[in-house]
C-alpha cells in the first residue's frame, strides 16, 4: 500500500493508539476491553486518548479476570463484533491460555469455517528493564507454535499503525505483540529509531510480509521486535568492520514470510537469527530450518543463533543484560559467520 509522504513523527505507542482510534471511528463493531485501558489509557499507552473520544461503553475497563474478559471477547467476536482485548503483559497468559488457544484459536476450525472469530489480542512483551521473569518474556514462539492465531510483532511506528489496522480488519484472531522497549515510552530507555514518520491517514501493512530493514550483501540477520533495532545498530558496527549485513524484520511469525528468508539467504549465503525469546524449540530453529529447506546449497557457513538462553529472565541488571540478545552479541555472531 502506498501512502502520502509525511514529516509527522510518532512513537510506536502513539501509532498503535492512532490505528485503533481510526478504525473505531469508522467501524462501530470495534471496541476495546482490558485492564486499565480506560482512564489510564493502557499501561503502555496502547489505548491513549480513546476513552475521551469513544466513552466507557466502547473502551471498557475490566476486572482482573483475563479468562472472563478474553473469553467474552471471543463470544462478542462470534456474535458480530470486532473486539480488541488487552492482556497487559504476555507473561500473564498462564491465567487465561485456555480461552486463547483452546477456544479463540480453534472455533473457526471446529466449525468447518462457518464461524469467524475476529479478535485482536494486544499484549506487551519483552525485557531489558529489570522487571524479572514474570514481566519480561516475549513468548511469541509459543503463540506461533499453536495453530489458529496470527502473531504480529511490529518494531517500528509505521508498521505498528498499519499492522494494527490490518489486524482489526482481519477475520481471524490476531495476537498483536508490542515490545515495551520499542514503544517510545517516556519512562523507558528507547532506541533512537522509536520515533519515525507515520502517515496521518489510515493504511494497512499486510500481515505475513517481512521487511528488509537494511540491505546488505555479506550476512543475513533475521529477527523481530526490539531486536530489529539491535540488529540495525549491529549492522552499523559491522559496516565499519567491512561486513555488509542485511537485516530482515519478520514483522509477523504467523504467517511467516519464509520466502523472504530464503531470498535473503540466497543473496548473502550466511545467516544469523536473533531472537529475544528462549532459544530452544523456538523461532531461531524455525528460521534456520526454513533456510536449510529452501536454500541449503547456498549456505556457505552453518547458521548461528543469538537468543535468550533457556533460563527464566533474571532480575539483576547485569544478569539480564548478559541473558538477552545484545548488539555486541549480534556483531560477534555476524562477524564470525561472515568470516567463516
Amino acid at each position, binding site marked *: 500500500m502506498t501512502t502520502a509522504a509525511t514529516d509527522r513523527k510518532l512513537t510506536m505507542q502513539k501509532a498503535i493508539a492512532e490505528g485503533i482510534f481510526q478504525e473505531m471511528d469508522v467501524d*462501530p*463493531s470495534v*471496541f476495546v476491553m482490558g485492564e486499565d485501558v480506560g482512564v489510564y489509557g493502557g499501561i503502555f499507552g496502547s489505548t491513549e486518548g480513546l476513552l475521551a473520544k469513544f466513552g466507557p461503553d466502547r473502551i471498557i475497563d*475490566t*476486572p482482573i*479476570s483475563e*479468562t*472472563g*474478559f*478474553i*473469553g*467474552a*471477547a*471471543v*463470544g*462478542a*467476536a*462470534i*456474535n*458480530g*463484533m470486532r*473486539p480488541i482485548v488487552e492482556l497487559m503483559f504476555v507473561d500473564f497468559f498462564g*491465567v487465561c491460555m*485456555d*480461552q486463547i488457544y*483452546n*477456544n479463540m484459536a*480453534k*472455533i*473457526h*476450525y*471446529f*466449525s*468447518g*469455517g*462457518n*464461524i*469467524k472469530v475476529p479478535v485482536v489480542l494486544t499484549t506487551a512483551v519483552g525485557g531489558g528493564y529489570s522487571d524479572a521473569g514474570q514481566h519480561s518474556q516475549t513468548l511469541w514462539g509459543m503463540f506461533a507454535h499453536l*495453530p*489458529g492465531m*496470527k502473531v504480529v510483532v511490529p518494531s517500528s511506528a509505521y508498521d505498528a499503525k498499519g499492522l494494527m489496522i490490518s489486524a482489526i480488519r482481519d*477475520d*481471524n484472531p490476531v495476537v498483536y505483540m508490542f515490545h515495551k522497549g520499542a514503544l517510545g515510552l517516556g519512562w523507558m530507555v528507547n532506541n533512537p529509531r522509536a520515533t519515525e514518520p507515520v502517515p496521518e491517514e489510515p493504511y494497512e501493512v499486510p500481515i505475513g510480509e517481512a521487511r528488509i530493514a537494511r540491505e546488505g550483501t555479506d550476512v543475513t540477520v533475521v529477527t523481530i521486535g526490539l531486536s530489529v533495532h539491535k540488529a540495525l545498530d549491529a549492522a552499523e558496527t559491522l559496516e565499519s568492520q567491512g561486513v555488509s549485513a542485511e537485516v530482515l524484520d519478520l514483522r509477523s511469525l504467523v504467517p511467516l514470510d519464509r520466502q523472504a528468508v530464503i531470498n535473503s539467504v540466497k543473496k548473502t549465503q550466511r545467516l544469523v537469527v536473533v531472537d529475544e525469546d528462549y532459544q530452544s524449540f523456538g523461532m531461531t530453529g524455525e528460521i534456520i530450518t526454513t533456510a536449510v529447506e529452501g536454500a541449503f546449497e547456498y549456505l556457505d557457513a552453518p547458521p548461528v543463533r543469538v537468543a535468550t538462553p533457556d533460563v527464566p529472565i533474571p532480575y539483576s541488571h547485569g544478569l539480564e543484560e548478559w541473558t538477552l540478545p545484545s548488539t555486541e552479541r549480534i556483531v560477534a555472531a555476524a562477524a564470525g559467520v561472515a568470516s567463516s
Partner: protein
Amino acid sequence: MEIPKEHLVDMYETMVKIRRFEERIREMYFADKLPAFDIAAGLIPGEMHLAAGQEPVAVGMRPHLQPGDAITATHRPHHVAIAQGVDLNKMAAEIFGRETGLGRGKGGHMHLFSVEPNFGCSGIIGEGMPVAVGAALAFRFKGTDNIALSYFGEGAANQGAFHESINLAALWKLPVVFVCEDNAYAISVPKAASTAIPDNSDRASAYGIPGVLVSENDPVAVYEVMGAAMDRARRGDGPSLIEIKTDRLWGHFEGDADAYRDDEFKEEMNQRDPLVVFGQRLADEGILSADEQTAIQEAQHAIVEEALEFALASPYPKPEAALDHVFA
C-alpha cells in the same frame, strides 16, 4: 402458572427426540466396538458423553427462546443443541465425522457449532461461560433483546471461569442466564466431595444476582424458573444463576463402568426417569393420552432415523481437508 398446552407437548416431543437420539447414538457407538472395546474404532470414534436423563434442563427453556438467542453448552451437549433446534442431520453427520457435518468433521460431538440457531459447546469445563458473557455484550452493543444461556455442570462451578464470568455479567448487568446442570457427579467425584456448599444457586448472592434452585428434574419446574430468568434478562434486568438437580442416567462417557455410583443410587435414579414421569403426568392430566404419546414417539423416532441415515449416507471429508479452515 398455567402452561399453554402446546408448550407441554413441545417439551415432551423434544424430550422424546433427545432420548431417542442418545439411545441410537449409544447403540451405534458400541455396535462396531465389540467384542473388545476400542475407543478409536467404529463409525463413532472417540469419547461420547450422552445426556439421557438430563432432558428437562434443556427442554424447559425451549418455549422461551427467541431467534438469535445464544447458547453455550458443555462436553455433554446433545440435549441442549437439540432443544435449541440445531440441525439434527448436520449434527449427526458431525458426530459421524462426515463432510456434511456442522464442522465438516473437524469438531466432533464435543465441538458442535451452529450459526442459526446460535449454538456452541466445548470440551473444556467452564470454557463456554465467558463466551456467553461476550455474546450478551454483543447483543447490548447491537441493541437487540437477545439473551445468552450458559450451560455448565456442577463441577464447573469450582472453576475460575465460573466466578469471573458471573462477576462480569453481574457487574455489567448483561442478559445472561447461567444454568448449572447438577447431575451430582463430576465424573466420579460426588458434589459433596468437591463443593463447599450444597447448592451452587446460593453462590449467586456473592454477585448480587438472583439464584434459584430447581430441586426436581422436571421440565415444568425448569420451564417456570427459566422463563422468569430469561424474561428478566431480556428486559434488561441482568443475569441470574439457576441450578437444576438432574440425573445422568448413564456413565460419564460411554464405556464408563460407572462403579462409583452404587446400585441403590442407580435404582432410585432409574425409578425417577424424567421422560417416564413426565409422560405419566401428561397422561394423568389428560394432556396427552397414551395413544397420542405413542404417535409422538413414532414421529420423533422417525426424525432421528432420518438424521442418522443422512449422516451415514454422507461422505467422509478428504483426509487432506485437515489443512483447511485453520484461518478464514
